[in-house]
């Protein structure tokens, strides 16, 4: 056999190109199976496609049911088991529990303040984003919004620890000129600051489409009628952007009210929110019943606010326009 002749199969040449390809055979087999599908069960196809997603979310629903069940049982601290009988004792206890009230008010006040600050700051950001003539500036501002979204809360809180900590960059810089060190962290304002910085991208993303929908001609019309720049913003742009402002406020409010990481990391245990209280009930005092009760109250609070958001933004929030 000639050394350069190659293998016999190669010499025989490839099979003729008219041969039926394997991938076609597989497709045909699949079509044959699909054709066997009874016409009566045509309607079942869409449910089969939807099924896996319904099942995934079903886990969440199951979890909430288990949580509601646990919240109605009292922890027996001799055995560390939840009792057999249902009672509302956990909720009654919440009602008269000072620490719960203090935490609830702290969370609610923070929600109010963070929402206000976020709206105030998100407005100019979203305005610049939607009105700038410079494509490069718009790109930079957009990337600036999405990058923190993907960096995650823990890493961002860690960044603030490095900047604001007792031996952090700010205190070291102040130390060079003979000032400080100041205690900048583990306080209520520190938690609020971290939350505003964390929620800002969400607020801008909810607000920007509303601002983009306002034609610039309207602003120019107001100006040509003699309205000053500030008056145009206050009397024309802000009222027209109301749906976006409401949506932004509700998103920021739900996320702030139920936040865990910022109070835990930047508050250092001194300024806990409700979610931290839930965590402590499970992992410090091992009271699954009471913890579930707080978690359920918080879930109801948060879901109500989010429900308002859906009502305001209209359904179709999944971006599905429906069958055509």
């Amino acid at each position, binding site marked *: 056999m000639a050394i350069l002749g190659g293998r016999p199969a190669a010499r025989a040449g490839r099979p003729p190109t008219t041969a039926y390809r394997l991938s076609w055979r597989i497709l045909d087999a699949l079509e044959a199976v699909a054709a066997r599908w009874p016409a009566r069960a045509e309607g079942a196809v869409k449910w089969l496609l939807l099924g896996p997603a319904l099942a995934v979310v079903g886990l969440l629903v199951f979890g909430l049911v288990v949580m509601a069940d646990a919240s109605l049982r009292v922890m027996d601290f001799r055995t560390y088991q939840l009792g057999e009988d249902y009672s509302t004792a956990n909720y009654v206890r919440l009602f008269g529990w000072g620490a719960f009230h203090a935490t609830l008010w702290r969370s609610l006040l923070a929600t109010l303040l963070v929402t206000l600050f976020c709206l105030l700051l998100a407005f100019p950001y979203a305005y610049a984003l939607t009105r700038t003539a410079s494509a490069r500036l718009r790109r930079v501002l957009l990337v600036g919004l999405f990058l923190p979204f993907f960096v995650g809360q823990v890493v961002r809180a860690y960044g603030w620890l490095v900047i604001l900590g007792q031996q952090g960059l700010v205190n070291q810089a102040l130390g060079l000129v003979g000032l400080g060190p100041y205690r900048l962290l583990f306080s209520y304002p520190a938690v609020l600051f971290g939350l505003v910085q964390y929620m800002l991208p969400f607020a801008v993303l909810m607000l920007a489409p509303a601002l983009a*929908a306002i034609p610039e001609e309207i602003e120019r019309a107001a100006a040509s009628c003699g309205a000053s720049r500030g008056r145009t913003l206050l009397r024309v742009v802000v009222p027209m952007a109301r749906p976006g402002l409401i949506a932004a406020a509700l998103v920021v409010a739900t996320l702030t*009210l139920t936040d865990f*990481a910022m109070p835990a990391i930047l508050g250092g245990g001194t300024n806990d929110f409700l979610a931290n209280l839930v965590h402590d009930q499970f992992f410090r005092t091992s009271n699954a019943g009471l913890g579930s009760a707080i978690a359920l109250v918080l879930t109801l609070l948060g879901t109500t606010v989010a429900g308002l958001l859906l009502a305001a933004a209209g359904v179709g929030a999944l971006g599905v326009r429906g069958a055509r």
Partner: protein
Amino acid sequence: MAGGVALALLLLLAAPSLVVAGASLTAGSIVQFPPEGLSLRWYGRVLEAREVRDALLRSLEVATVCTALAVPSGTLAAIALARWRFRAALAIQLYLLLPFTVPLIGSGIGLMLLFGELGLLGRVWPVGIACCVINLPFMIWAVAASVNALDPELERAAASCGAGPVQTFLLVTLPAVAPGILAGALVMFVLALNEFLVSLLLVDARTVTLPVQIYTQIRGVITPDLAAVSTVYVLVAAAAVLLLDRLVGLEIFLRSR
């Protein structure tokens, strides 16, 4: 003026990421200002530190499980919702949005109790399932946008050329919505890599994920090796944003709905 405020805010948004990246490059053994000089030695330390490396591998497993579950379930659901009429369409949409309306602490505790009853706590893959549960609407969103942009005439054309339903689905519908699927998969993967609270509730000391590992370590002394790990996150995030921009274009988020 708005532009100036926006740029100042941009700096505020970027500050933690920039500082973390800067701190990771220090040659000294503490994070300080001004830095003691440049070096990559803390990145080497991360590769040697067993705890951090294992946590990173676990987080990758979580993100993989999450994406592997989210891609088929989210894609099929988005296609079904866009192409078929459902009698209870409104109820189905509200149900599928539950992961966004229920606060994370509620979903987390619920899944923790449920997985506890099923004996799944303390393993890594259930955390991936949980991440899929809480972020699934993102996947459906991303694919739905692509399906809505797809002209149904294309599918009808394929059918009239003799393609069966399976062939049409695999060779016309799926490739057309592929950018949406990729974008959704990317978002699910990165968010699962970052997921903190739900991880914290579901893991035990032997199965901590990377965000939980960072969280436990920053309560002690702040050392540059954590900054190195965190910088990996910043880089992953930057790559994700660039990819997302390529796939769907970030400007899509400015359009009014």
